[in-house]
């Protein structure tokens, strides 16, 4: 075999291998998607049926049983709302830490991240009681506030690690050009950071969308996002896999499709600048 043929073979094997892993890992999602178009009987048939006449019945039943649209709207409001809030609070903090670092900046950052290590369950009881006392149980307001605080450390950290990599000379050039601090932020830093801000926002949205501790413990129906709606399908009332799959597909599809489009930025953002 020539060296060239060897290389081609290597590429082929690498590709084969990568595709195999990817397909195995993707299989459960694929299977969920397929099952959602089956009848309940086909869904539990052994051997599993791959070829069948697809039906949309499950989807209409899901909407009827648990009002998908209502929960989806809750998910959208809580995840987008808290993300926007977190960004508004985090951008100034990250900006000042990156461009005017003090001696304790690093400590403050580590402390922020350590609040994220604090298990939610440690404060479950008081948060539950505060929400109960202020009538915030099963309310979107409570979820938005909690999600905001929950993701704030990660949002600050991600923005910080991006801001600090912005070349300082560009800001100095702007200063020489007569820019005020406000001009610097609005005309130089923000336009340059749109990528970072949007990937941070994406991550925050994904984390909120899939958050399933507070959404399961603090909501019942009115404010219940999709995670809570799906959890209601776990009760052992028989094998309704097709409907379950339809509901799951509906719950995940928006964020998965959203994620597909932004996966590159997302991975880069999530690594806190560990990967360039």
């Amino acid at each position, binding site marked *: 075999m020539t060296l060239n043929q060897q290389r081609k073979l290597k590429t082929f094997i690498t590709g084969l291998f990568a595709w195999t892993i990817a397909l195995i890992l993707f299989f459960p999602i694929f299977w969920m998607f397929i099952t959602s178009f089956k009848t309940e009987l086909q869904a539990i048939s052994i051997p599993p049926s791959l070829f069948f006449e697809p039906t949309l019945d499950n989807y209409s039943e899901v909407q009827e049983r648990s009002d998908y649209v209502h929960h989806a709207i809750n998910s959208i409001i809580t995840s987008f709302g808290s993300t926007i809030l977190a960004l508004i609070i985090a951008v100034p903090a990250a900006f000042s830490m990156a461009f005017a670092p003090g001696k304790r900046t690093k400590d403050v950052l580590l402390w922020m991240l350590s609040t994220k290590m604090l298990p939610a369950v440690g404060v479950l009881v008081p948060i539950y009681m505060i929400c109960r006392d202020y009538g915030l149980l099963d309310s979107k307001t409570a979820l938005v506030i909690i999600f905001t605080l929950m993701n704030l450390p990660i949002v600050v950290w991600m923005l910080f690690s991006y801001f600090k990599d912005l070349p300082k000379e*560009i800001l100095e050039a702007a200063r*020489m*050009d007569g820019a005020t601090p406000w001009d610097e932020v609005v005309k130089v830093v923000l336009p340059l950071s749109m990528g970072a801000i949007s990937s941070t926002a994406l991550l925050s949205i994904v984390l909120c969308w899939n958050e399933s501790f507070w959404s399961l413990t603090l909501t019942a129906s009115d404010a219940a996002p999709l995670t809570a709606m799906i959890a209601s399908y776990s009760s052992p009332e028989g094998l309704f896999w097709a409907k379950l799959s339809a509901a799951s597909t509906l719950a995940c599809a928006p964020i998965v499709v959203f994620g597909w489009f932004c996966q590159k930025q997302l991975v880069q953002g999530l690594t806190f600048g560990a990967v360039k």
Partner: protein
Amino acid sequence: MSYLTITDLQKHYDNYHALRGINLSITEGEFVVFVGPSGCGKSTLLRTIAGLESSTGGTIELDGRDITELASSKRDLAMVFQSYALYPHMTVADNLSFALRLAKVSDAEIQEKVRSVSASLQLDALLERKPKELSGGQRQRVAIGRAIVRQPKVFLFDEPLSNLDAALRVQMRLELARLHKKLGTTMIYVTHDQVEAMTLADRVVILNAGQIEQVGTPLELYRKPNSRFVAEFIGTPKMNLIPADKITHKADELVFDLFGHTIHFPAKRIKGTQPDSTIVGIRPEHLSLVEEGGDLTGRIELVEHLGSEAYAHIQLLNDQTIIVKAAARLELKDGQEVHIKVDVDEIILFDDNNKVISVIPEEA
């Protein structure tokens, strides 16, 4: 009359004294180059003039106005950065006009200025491009254009050519020289490359360890350095330095005994007391290879042929290597024994404190 006056400028960092009392005056229209090894404070000095670093003592005056405490943007200076620092999210046209837009200049005037600057820097065809679509040389020109468009009182350049490849660097160097001739604006230029300093400057400021070592025209620094530091820093290849610790004092001359050879040096060219030991400094072009006789002998270690000339690295009897400039087509073999003639008129002597103790003949 002095245009930019710097008086006893100090810059302390937490545990580092970066500028130790800088005094300098620059006249209008001058091209001044700050040069020195890395860490000498040249960039700090430039950035302090720009207002990007605050000084911890001393004053800076520009055109009769004290600007020491003024914000960068109010100093009427423009700076070209080493990394160009173009705004990546703006087109070339927007980069050029950013300062004007901030200053609320009218659209018509902005257009006119951008047009004339881009024409003079051959950027016309690139106005709608983003910086990342430009080559290194083009980015450099945009950075310069961004400075010109504002018509500042002084241009500051922070190692602007160091990111370019060798050929482009020479070309941009010429363009900068032309630009200075055309605009006639005061320019301050920082570099670590002494060739850039020599070719561009009206006056060169040599900095060392936060202090000014010497200020002068390029030729002055080359011919009349004050110290060994300046003598070694200016000139490629470097000046040869040969220690002479056996000196015989005669009536009107000193005789240096250099391992069996002697060099006779007129005593009247020594400033101050006659030394008992010295370091003899002589540039490669003031040494020549001769058939016989000569003042020194040595063996050829290596020859660098540059085409128009050659540099012979010669090992002396004390194992020290010196460099001699030789004619290009001279047949020289490694290991060959050669005789070297020294042009005594060009010798510069240094004392133990590395200060120059000799003067050149026409002044003697």
